[in-house]
């Protein structure tokens, strides 16, 4: 029981941060039909900026740093959208992949120049770096922070997309961008907002996981692969699907690690193949016509 609780908590926390990253990716894909490979870079920048902003201090500054890192990367997203992505919206998928992949490499190089190739760590504030006991299991409080953040992001997305006219407009852009634009909406501006929000979400996830990981170059690559898996299983463009898929990937990873540690990644891909055999368009996606 104790081991189950420990594993369950860890899985939920991993799935939570994965959901926040992937939600940004799926939001951008849904509204703009662009698969943004540089999304992983935004995640890594969120984490690196966090190490810079927090420094050696702990306490209140930690929370401000998360916010600041997300905002700075949001601004970076704005620049990437204006400088690159807006030129490939509506173009061939291959063109989009090459363009965003180029951004991915450029940002990786810049990151290397700024932060070097060593691993960095961040200490969580004392208040959330302890553990608590539940049914005999020692559970890290910080897992609760990540899970709570994921739930908040999920709720916010549900509220905005389902219950505000701005959200309906973003969904309308998913349904039929041409009709939305000819109805009077400046689609480019909408894209700018959505892309910035997507970058912000990636950075938020990157910043918030820093106390649990070592921050180093390469994390941009691993996260983009995993979040692409999540987004594909969930159904491109679906936030609910993304949440469920993040959970599935998280569970597959945990079970894989427990059963056959050397084959953990295989478990994850196996889950992907299983879902896609049954529903090629993902759990909550719609078949392309």
């Amino acid at each position, binding site marked *: 029981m104790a081991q189950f609780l420990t594993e369950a908590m860890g899985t939920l926390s991993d799935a939570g941060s994965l959901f926040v990253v992937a939600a940004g990716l799926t939001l951008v894909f849904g509204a703009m039909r662009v698969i943004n490979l540089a999304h992983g870079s935004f995640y890594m920048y969120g984490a690196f900026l966090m190490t810079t902003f927090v420094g050696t201090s702990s306490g209140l500054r930690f929370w401000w740093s998360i916010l600041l890192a997300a905002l700075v990367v949001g601004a970076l997203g704005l620049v990437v959208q204006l400088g690159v992505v807006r030129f490939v919206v509506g173009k061939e998928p291959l063109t989009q992949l090459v363009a965003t992949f180029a951004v991915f490499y450029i940002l990786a190089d810049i990151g290397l120049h700024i932060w070097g190739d060593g691993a960095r760590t961040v200490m969580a504030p004392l208040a959330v770096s302890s553990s608590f006991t539940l049914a005999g299991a020692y559970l890290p409080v910080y897992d609760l922070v990540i899970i709570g953040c994921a739930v908040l992001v999920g709720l916010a997305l549900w509220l905005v997309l389902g219950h505000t*006219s701005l959200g*309906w*407009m973003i969904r309308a852009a*998913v*349904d*039929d961008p041409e009709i939305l634009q*000819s*109805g*009077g*909406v400046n689609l480019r501006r909408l894209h700018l907002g959505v892309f910035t929000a997507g970058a912000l979400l990636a950075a938020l996830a990157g910043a918030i996981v820093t106390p649990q990981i070592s921050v180093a170059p390469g994390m941009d690559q691993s996260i983009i692969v995993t979040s692409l898996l999540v987004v594909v299983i969930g159904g491109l463009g679906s936030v609910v699907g993304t949440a469920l898929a993040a959970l599935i990937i998280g569970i597959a990873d945990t079970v894989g690690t427990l059963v056959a540690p050397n084959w953990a990644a295989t478990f994850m891909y196996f889950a992907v193949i299983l879902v896609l055999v049954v529903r090629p368009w993902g759990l909550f996606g719609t078949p392309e016509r």
Partner: protein
Amino acid sequence: MRLEVRDIHTYYGASHVLQGASLVVEPSEVVALLGRNGAGKTTMMRSIIGLTRPESGSIRLDGEELLGAPSYRPARLGLAFLPSGRRVFSSLSVEENLEVARRSCPRRSGPWNTERVYGLFPKLAQLRRRTAGHLSGGEQQMLKIGRALMTNPAMILLDEPTEGLSPAVVGELGEWLSMLARENLSILLAEQSATFAREHASRGYLLEKGTIRFEGSMDEIWASAELRSALGIAARDDGTTGA
């Protein structure tokens, strides 16, 4: 609102679809754009809005040049576009569709709001929470008109509104069009069904292979056996009011 299209040339890739077409819609006028499938009617509509950009020519809306303007501009000036087919925001509810339309042109004011649209289409009021993708063809047509009205337009471009509708719904559509005309809206109606267009339009343009082959009153078009055969109207089909 007055629309003047002058000598536009529009291409789809290498194919020269509109080859110097011109037309005028005067304020409060209902004008038909006739022609067979592939004549370039939809391309004309898309060129006016800017969804497909003409290479040259001029498109003036009350004097403002639309050629080269972003395609969200016409709606903000009061020119609403109703594309053919099932083009509604299919994952949104009826009410959300209307609200998105209103918010798309926030600066346009006028008599139309959700309540008035529901007054015109009581069926939409009943279906306000229904997902638009699940509506019937006729209901989607209502929603498209309702969405256009929410932007308080002065002119409406209707592309093939009767396409795919049952005869009963085409009858209703005719009533809605008459109502819009009574509201002093200008309408440019692209139609393959010349008999439907004749009931509503006073003037018409016949588009053939990307150029305007004839322009004149609907009666003139009907009087010419040659034009009638160009439109695919049988010799004995006299339309509804007789030639």
